[in-house]
């Protein structure tokens, strides 16, 4: 009868042999001191490994882990608020720009200004293309909306801006 292989001994200890193979290993071990010795060696490894105790963790790892987590995505409601806020802010910026450009356009002739500058600095023959604000088709002072409406718009944008940024800041802080 041939001796038990290393693989068979391991599988026997891992209890993964089918029942008949398991029984035949037991029978062999009972009658073969050489294999019984090898079996004892291996079994003692199982036993020794099981003696290793769990170590105590002295530091709480949670704060360090949580601090390094990426910021969670904002809930849909907040993302909507941020989108509306951004849209309104762009609209307001546009309105302000329109007023400002209209004012400039009606008060100053930009071309005159540029020509004067060129004369002053050595009569450069190079003509710098100048911006004629009227050519852009910008209106004068008038806002497309009434004054009370623009104030309401300003307040709404400000409130949304404040809310949105407060939420974003809080989100960043959590992350």
């Amino acid at each position, binding site marked *: 009868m041939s001796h038990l292989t*290393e*693989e068979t001994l*391991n599988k026997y200890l*891992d209890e*993964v042999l089918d029942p008949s193979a398991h029984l035949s290993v037991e029978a062999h071990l009972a009658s073969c001191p050489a294999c019984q010795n090898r079996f004892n*060696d*291996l079994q*003692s*490894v*199982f036993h*020794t*490994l*099981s*003696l*290793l*105790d*769990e*170590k*105590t*963790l*002295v*530091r*709480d*790892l*949670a704060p*360090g*882990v*949580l601090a*390094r*987590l990426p910021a*969670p995505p904002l809930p849909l409601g907040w993302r909507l608020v941020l989108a509306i806020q951004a849209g309104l802010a762009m609209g307001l910026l546009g309105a302000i720009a329109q007023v400002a450009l209209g004012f400039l356009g009606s008060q100053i002739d930009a071309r005159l200004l540029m020509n004067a500058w060129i004369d002053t600095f050595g009569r450069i023959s190079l003509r710098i293309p100048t911006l004629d604000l009227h050519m852009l088709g910008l209106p004068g002072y008038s806002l497309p909306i009434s004054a009370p409406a623009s104030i309401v718009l300003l307040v709404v944008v400000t409130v949304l801006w404040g809310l949105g940024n407060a939420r974003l800041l809080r989100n960043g802080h*959590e992350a």
Partner: protein
Amino acid sequence: MSTIDDRDTFAEMIYQSQTAVYNVAYRILGNVQDAEDAAQETFLRAYRFRHTYKDGYQSGPWLKRITVNVCLQRLEKAYPTQSLDEDWLQPPDPHPGPQEQTEACDLQARIQAELLRLPPRYRAVIELRHYQDLSYQEIAAVLNRPLSDVRSDLFRARRMLAQNMKDLR
């Protein structure tokens, strides 16, 4: 959507399993600082791959499997020119010197030292089989390696341990 998306749930998961995760890392890496770092990295990786966690199952086994791979990757990074297999050369000499001979009586330290004498891949299979109680197939899945390799690694690791720990009996 995994329940881990909720931070409080995830924090609770850390509190419950950090000691177990730390112990896995300690058995494979052998020192407190590395084990703590690996445990933290495990949780961060778990959060990133939280979609692989099946709700309703215990998170402990899932986390401990991730830990083994985190540790192997750390060893690979720390010793890039070395193989993690059989021809691994353990950098610090794990054999106890004259000074440490008395400490060798400390069975705990001795078992830990013997684990560290094993090549990292062997440590991993010993960890997964003996401390996490996984089947050969499950170990192969965790390590993403062929079943036959896992089996032969495990059997060789036990043979090495049997030879090195003869005096413990």
